[in-house]
């Protein structure tokens, strides 16, 4: 399987975390919270679209709500492939980070 880009990885993870509520606005919020950077909508739409094309995400439309001016939400959900991808990322990341405590890196500054 091909490697995902960093934003795609973060978005995929955010979708998994948010479960039933995974549509654009909370995803964005989640990303802001965990990365500390500001994310624009475009920066979220793009990885979402790409992930969906790659078959890692699937989406459906919710009922319209008044809060959104009568617009529907597009809610994303991980496909089995998506979960597989997360597992792979987690494995690889843990592998490559193995035995490197944060303290050591900071001391080298």
């Amino acid at each position, binding site marked *: 399987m091909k490697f995902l880009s960093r934003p795609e990885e973060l978005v995929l993870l955010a979708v998994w975390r948010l479960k039933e509520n995974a*549509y*654009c*606005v909370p995803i*964005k919020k989640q990303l802001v919270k965990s990365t500390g950077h500001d994310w*624009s*909508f*475009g920066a979220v*739409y793009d990885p979402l679209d790409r992930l969906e094309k790659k078959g890692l995400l699937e989406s459906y*439309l919710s009922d*319209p709500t*008044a*809060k*959104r*001016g009568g*617009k*529907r*939400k*597009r809610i994303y959900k991980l496909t089995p492939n998506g979960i597989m991808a997360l597992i792979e990322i987690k494995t690889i990341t843990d592998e490559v980070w193995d035995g490197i405590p944060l303290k050591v890196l900071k001391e080298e500054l």
Partner: protein
Amino acid sequence: MTREKFKNPPKLAEWILSCVYPDRGDFTSVGDFREEYLEVYQSSGRLKANLWYWMQIVKSIPGFIRNKSHWNTVMIHNYLKIALRNIKRHKTFSFINITGLVVGMTCSILIMLFIQYEISHDRYHENADKIYRVLIRQPNDIYQGIDMYSISPPPLKAALMNAFPEIQNAARILRTEGLINYKNNRYLESRFFTVDPEFLKIFTFPLTAGDRETALNEPFSILLTEEMAEKYFGDEDPMGKTLNIDNTYDYQITGILRNIPGNSHFQFDFLGSFSSLYPIYGDYGDRFFEDWNAYQVKTYVQLHSSSDTGEFNSKFPVRLEKYRGRPTNDEIYIQPLTNIHLGGNVNDEIEANSDIRYVYFFSAIALLIMLVACFNYMNLSTAGAVQRVKEVGIRKVVGASRHNLVYQFLGESLLFAFMALFFSLWLVKLLLPAFSSLIEKELSFQVFNNIETFSGLLGISVLVGILSGSYPAFFLSSFLPVNIIKGKLISRKSLNKSSGFRNTLVVTQFAISTVLVICTIIIFNQLQYIRTKELGFKKEYIVTVPIQDENLKKNYGPLKYELGQYSKIADVTVSNFLPFSVENSQAVDWDGRPEDGPDFRYLCVELNFLDFYGIELAEGRNFSNEIATDVERAYILNESAVRVVGWEDPIGKRFRCQRNVDGQVVGVVNNFHCHSLHRQIEPLVIFLFDDSGWWDVRYFSIKISSEDISGTLALMEEKFEKFSPYPFSYSFLDERIDMLYRREQKLGQNFGYFTFVAIFIACLGLFGIASLTSGQRTKEIGIRKTLGASVSSISFMLTKEFMKLTSIGIIIAFPVSYFAMHEWLKNFAYRVDIGWIPYIGAVLITVLLSLGTVFFQVFKAARANPVDSLRYE
């Protein structure tokens, strides 16, 4: 609820957003933005939230543009490639299409240049919008059918300046001839103006030397154009030199003018100072400047500011007697400078003016020709559509929307239009000198120097592109891919509709062409009629010499004697006017004349005049030198005069004109055309001039033999110059008569050319259609032939359809051209009957041309071997 409402993002911003996200179906993203907006609103207030929302949109613009333009270029690239491939593949049609457009555009551009030139007259003066010409209406003196005069008396200038404070400058122009001499470089100059110093303030003709403020202040100052400076001085510097005028006065040169542009309503070569007139007129000088009867100068005024024009205009006409002090019916009118050239002629114009109607007329022709060319393009592209059905189908299947296709085909026609523009610019450059000499104007053509011309040309080609591309674009884009794939190609209904449309176009084209052909034939008929009409006097081999010099009048006796010695000169006579154009009239009186009876034109002639010109008497006798009283008391009338008076038997009746002596009518001449054929023959009285009548004599007429004309002319020159210091100038009578109809002749010529062009384009189109449709019917023809049809019957069948269209066009053209020409012929009092001949001629021309055009295509199709066309079935 109301609070909720306020939390909506700005409507406009949201609308823009929803526009750039058309593919997101139900706009979930718009909803996302709205939610985020709400949050910003709650945390930081409305202002911040709005700002945030707008920033989102602004930030997205660069990306949006990049994205859009990328895909557009890709598509344009593709469209261009396909268009060029099509041009290459269908060489004949591309050629016909482009040729039609090129020829049409070239004509239109030439006509446009002409119109631009006509409109540009006198507009280059800085104060052009503030300058007016003063006109005088003399209701009692109608000359050439017009009672408006461009001449006014000299004291009017001061009177107007006093009465109208809004006038800033006023200038008078006195136009004369002058015999100009510098070191024996001697010419008679007819474009000599004597003007007030304000002339150079009102009209901003540029000076290359001299000071425009002071150049005309002193008496005997003169300015001349560069052309004249070259003519008289060659390489010398003319400034400060002296020119001798009329062998009497020495003028000092105080300035050089740049040559007067052709688009000026007056042309001059010399400007003399008005103050010179005091010494020149001598005793009469002071009186001349106060003489309300001296209708000799032209007066122009310039206002302080252009905002006064409306009010100033509304103050006119004014009665002249307000200033003159003596009762008169004359009225003062004003005419804006920029209206003069296209306003038609008033009396005593310096140059013949044009007429706004001619501008309209040529615009109409340009438009018609352009239409014919556009129709060609529409026609051929629609007829050729079948060949592109598959392309359209594939594009649609792949996802092109209808407006994509419309853009594509419009773009293609624009491409054609611009290619045509390119060729026609080149052609215009090539043809411009010929066209300039044809219309006798110096047109210039600079595409890139003049932003108006440039944008005009671009405008024309865009218009042509859109006009000619519109129908094919909508037609082609309307095919349904389902039908194409089903093999139906085009639905029967739309095919019928399109061929109906095409037929209408062909009919219109031929209607337009036939109208033009009929008009041309009628115009030429009328011109022929004018040329050959018996005028009632002889006009061949007669040389006319205008008399400029008193010396010639004084020495007429000896001159006539010496000329008479020469065998090639048959006779000599003098008169106040030449018989084809008797212009002045006199008050006349007879027993029982009503109060408001008309004035009569008059000819003041020498004894032998009637014999000289071969004017025949209807009754009575000619003047005779044996009857002493004839000089003062004999009158000969023309038949119109007799009819106006109402005499049964005019001979011996009392008659009198301004000469204050009662006389008798001794004879009546047959009506001869003493005016151009535009006008009815008016009442005319002929009498002999006595010694005091010499001042009125203006022309010598000399009848010469047809042999050795140049020798005779040389002899005449020698004799005339013996008695007069003026150079000998002459013209032939028949040429002068032709000059009366110059405008019509030019019109006829131009009409002929443009008609040819229109027909050419129409036939080009017909040729294209014929080859296309017969190409599409090869299979049908093949089957017919195998079933036994002959070549001739198939040719007939195919030709019949085209001829049907041509005939309908011709029939429509009949009434249209009849009414147009009926109007035009009203300009002539003497005119041809329109009759049937022009119509038959036009039918023959149009039918033969269109037959010839389709024949080859049809014949080729009919001759084709059915084996070839049916082999693949």
